[in-house]
């Protein structure tokens, strides 16, 4: 029971977030008319939402890859044989 409940919860959360996400984009299309867009991306409705979605996924994947292939070391990397850091 509890495991089914805990599995259900993330799906519910995800659906709520998707609903809010769509609402926020719709809200912008319907109600916001930018009066002074000075950059191309300010004319695209829902640009901020897509930026968050795409840039978020790319940046965390890129950061993890950077760590995994280049920068991650064992936690004892700087330790001297005597245990001093």
């Amino acid at each position: 029971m509890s495991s089914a409940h805990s599995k259900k919860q993330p799906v519910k959360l995800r659906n709520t977030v998707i609903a809010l996400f769509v609402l926020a984009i719709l809200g912008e299309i319907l109600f916001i008319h930018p009066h002074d867009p000075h950059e191309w991306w300010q004319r695209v409705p829902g640009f901020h939402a897509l930026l968050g979605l795409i840039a978020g996924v790319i940046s965390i994947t890129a950061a993890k890859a950077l760590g995994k292939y280049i920068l991650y070391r064992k936690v004892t990397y700087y330790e001297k044989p005597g245990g001093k850091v």
Partner: protein
Amino acid sequence: MHPSIPFFLAPIVLAIAGPRLRRVLQIAVPLAAFFLLRATAPLGAGRSEIILSFMGYGFIPIRMDALALLFAYTFIIFGLLANIYGLHATDRRTPVASNIYIGSSIGAVLAGDLVTLFIFWEIMALSSALLIWNKDRAASVGAMFRYLLVHLTGGLFFFSGILIKLIAKEAMTFEALGWSTASQLIFIGFAVNAAIPPLHAWLSDAYPEGTPTGSLYLSCFTTKVAVYAFARGFAGSEILIWLGAFAAVYGVIFALMENDTRRLLAYHIICQVGYMLCGIGIGSAIGVNAGTGHAIGNILFKGLLFMATGAIIEATGKSKLSELGGLASRMPLVFSFYMVGTLAISGAPLLNGYITKGLLLKSAAEAHMGWLELLLLLVAVGTFLSIGCKLAYFAFFGKPCDVKIKPVPANSHVAMAATSILCFSIGIFPNTFIPLLPFPQHGGFYDAAHVIHNLQLLLGTYLGFLFIRQYLHTEDTLTLDTDWFYRRASELFIKGICFPIHFTQLLVQQAWTLSIALLHTHISEKFLPQRMTPLSYPLLWMTTAFAIAGFTLLILKFS
């Protein structure tokens, strides 16, 4: 009277006081400084300064104007909040060091000339180093010495700049510094304290090592004093925009990689200081307002985040995301305060980050820097992703950790609640805060487009995180950073220099041993006792005696 005086006098008593008196002083000292400053210059008062003449130079130990007072008041208020947060701590070193640290930070922002600024700058470096020393973490001593090494080097750059100015008989007043050789050296000194990459590694190395209260003080003062110094000395320098943008991106990428909670937040200090420097580099009235306003906001929400993570560390004894999880239900209050800090730093409406980040985007737009605006939005995505999604999920949700949780002291809760209220009050009533900024600023922060764009950004980021959450794991690793150059490369460098010396020494030694051995074999073969005739010994002695006599005669003749 200088408002730092209570902070400098208190340590004398604090060093010997009992726990009760210490608690009273921790509350009374910031209050005394607050009223002292208020009596001299109420917030928003006009410019006033005290000029002293010494050895033919005019020094200004106190200069009070809008910019300086804004920082001085914030330092005092945050000092009080941090003192309340750490009231339960039993060690004496933290209160002693932190009072000197707060006092010198206030002294630095009120300094009207470079020499006074430098003196307070160095006191800050020394007193803050003591806050890194944490008896619970063996690694903290090494981190403290590395911190000192970097800061004293930065101080030397600053000092060389001052010396060049002194020799050239230039004025010592701390105003816009221009871009001469002396100013460039001072710029490097400031850049070290502002933790601009690649000069930043001292921050991410040292800040996570202190005690929870010690690190809280550290998170606030040093970098913000440097931001103040840039706002005063280098506002409008284009290089600051580039350095700030680089710092913002660098900090956010490293934060995404990090596993230690406080180190993750430390990388975000670097990132947020980058934001502030962008505003200051733009240099317009709104740009400087945005930079300084964001510094003040950052003191509050970053302080709140350090308080919450400090509470987790004190309660669980763990600081790594890989060892934490499921704390939201076990520490609900800390979780709520943490989320206030997170939403504030991510620029959610109704919180102070929304106001100052909005100002910053506006200043970039007014300066026609669309690329900077877009870059700052990208960094905001990374900020919410690392603090609001990654840290929040792995510490407060995710796989529950199996640790015993000590109760969080009431005073820590009070400090977190008060800081949260301040974050909300600036966010909800921006017009009470905006007039305190150094330049006049128009309001109008809550237009529908701006609010909805911010919500879209946060929702989009969170949705992306929900999609990839199952593929993310925390690993107990160490991330290489530029401190590698003085922690590992310097060792290799010394080894590199020493190797030829060792090699030559070894060669000479070997040659010497070999020749002795050869000589020994050669002589001993000829003069083996069994080969000696009865005449051999007298002959050997006589030859030796003649040789010595001849040698002596030669010396006597030619001397």
